[in-house]
């Protein structure tokens, strides 16, 4: 039974990786779960590669950083180079969620549980690229991570007090809708494993 989720958000600095990680951790904290959050710290956060790692668990978290993620969200192409060892290893059962317009997986490289979504373009449509991670959070919350969406909304509101908060919540809700659209797909073959995990973990937390 799965009761720990290790999530890595990876993209370009400025897409909100750090703050999205913090929001996810805050939402888990609000829900009474154990959580840790770390993020890349350096010049990369200003436009280059930027990552945020979040662990959510109902058990004690012994090691607070992530060696192998359960969920890997990729929003730029550069991230594939960084995560190649994880994505190419046969043993790792990492679920890959990628931006289908800006970061399609390199051909022949990724042959695992991978799901494409319109993340960055959707955020631009509603608000700006800055909301990309909020769209991703909506997708993660809708399909995998057993977090209550009201807790995530509250964490977003706390992170962005005022008008930007509403725009970010809009992005998050749009992400939830994207997840909803994929729901029927979960019964078809490529999503069976995803659905299994979904069913497995939900009764544990809710």
């Amino acid at each position, binding site marked *: 039974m799965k009761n720990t989720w290790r999530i890595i958000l990876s993209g370009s600095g400025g897409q909100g990786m750090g703050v999205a990680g*913090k929001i996810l*951790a*805050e939402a888990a*904290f609000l829900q009474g779960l*154990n*959580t*840790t*959050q*770390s*993020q890349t*710290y*350096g*010049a990369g956060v200003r436009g280059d590669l930027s990552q945020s790692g979040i662990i959510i668990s109902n058990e004690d*978290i*012994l*090691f*607070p*950083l992530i*060696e192998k993620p359960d969920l890997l969200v990729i929003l730029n192409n550069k991230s594939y180079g960084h995560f190649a060892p994880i994505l190419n290893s046969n043993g790792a059962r990492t679920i890959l969620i990628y931006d289908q317009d800006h970061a399609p997986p390199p051909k022949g490289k990724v042959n695992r549980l991978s799901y494409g979504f319109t993340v960055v373009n959707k955020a631009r449509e509603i608000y700006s690229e800055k909301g990309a991670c909020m769209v991703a959070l909506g997708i993660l919350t809708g399909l995998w991570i057993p977090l209550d969406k009201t807790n995530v909304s509250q964490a977003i509101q706390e992170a962005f007090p005022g008008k930007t908060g509403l725009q970010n919540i809009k992005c998050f809700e749009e992400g939830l809708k994207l997840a909803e659209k994929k729901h029927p797909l979960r019964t078809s073959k490529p999503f069976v494993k995803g659905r299994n995990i979904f069913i497995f973990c939900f009764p544990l937390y809710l």
Partner: protein
Amino acid sequence: MTIKKLLTGNEACAYAAVNAGARFFAGYPITPATEIVELCSKLMPSNNGVFIQMEDEIASLAAVIGASLGGTKAFTATSGPGFALMSENIGLAAMVEVPCVIINVQRYGPSTGIATKFSQSDVMAVRWGSPGDHSLIVLAPSSVQDCYDLTVEAFNLSERFRTPVILLSDAALAHLREKVEIREPGELNLYQRKKPSGPVDGYLPYGSLHNDVPVMSNFGDKHILRVTGLVHQASGYSSDNPRVAEELVQRLARKIDNYQEELPAPFFYGRQSADLIVVSFGISARASLEAVNTANNEGFKTGMLELRTIWPFPSKKVKELCSGAKKILVVEANRGQVREQLISCGIPPEKLRGINKQNAEVITPSEVLSALKEENS
């Protein structure tokens, strides 16, 4: 009241300092300790305290020493290159016997190294960076909760022993966000600095000792306080008398080394009768703990010792806990600075093996686990 919050290691240090009663911070921002400085610039004024951004780290610790001599709990935060500059004034604080706390958030070195990356290589620098013979206290947190608890403890110990206390954090812990239980001032046991009560005339600042620690007045009190970095007599006036020098320097070490049982004891996890024991500290202890946990679930007999007080090195406890083990694995992100201490306390070097990662990345549980299995096979 106890409040639960999600904080980074750096934030936890700053909140802990305020709740421990610190009302003076002087510092110079440096990655990865900057957030402590930044947060203190808000917390100090809002708690009737003083925040000063100094011109450099030499002046920062000088200001902290001055504030503490004036009777305020004072502290500073820095990283390797800044700590190097503080070395001179650490000696002064030790010699004059001024309570103060220095948070050293370790980054990759030597020199400016990699500002944003992690290391645990200041173990020896914090102890021996300042010239002269003296003892001091160094505590190492391994979680954000520890950053909070041990910062509070650092203030208590600095007041109790009248000595600089160094909190040895690191870049990984500094920016790690975890759940922290914040015990507010009413819930904390806070050590109050002892003050002289006898006649003002003829008061000797270094004359009346309590457990080898002088009962000193503060600047501005009725009892006149004289301080100097020179060897001094009980009156505080300087002296070049060999006997005075010897007694002073020996007492500076004795006042801490003879009372080690008052310092945070190492934690022991896993099996007491383990064949293999992992010794670690800081964030590396977290990787070790997960590895030991996994190994024991798979049927191995391993234990883990987490050092919380690094200096004075808890030789007696470490030797006692490690005596039954056939092999000891020392996990630290440096060339083996703690391993050297295990040899010093009498553990045969052939029993010791180190995991010494030096690529500025945190040691992972799988690295410790594979070393554990290799040693066990």
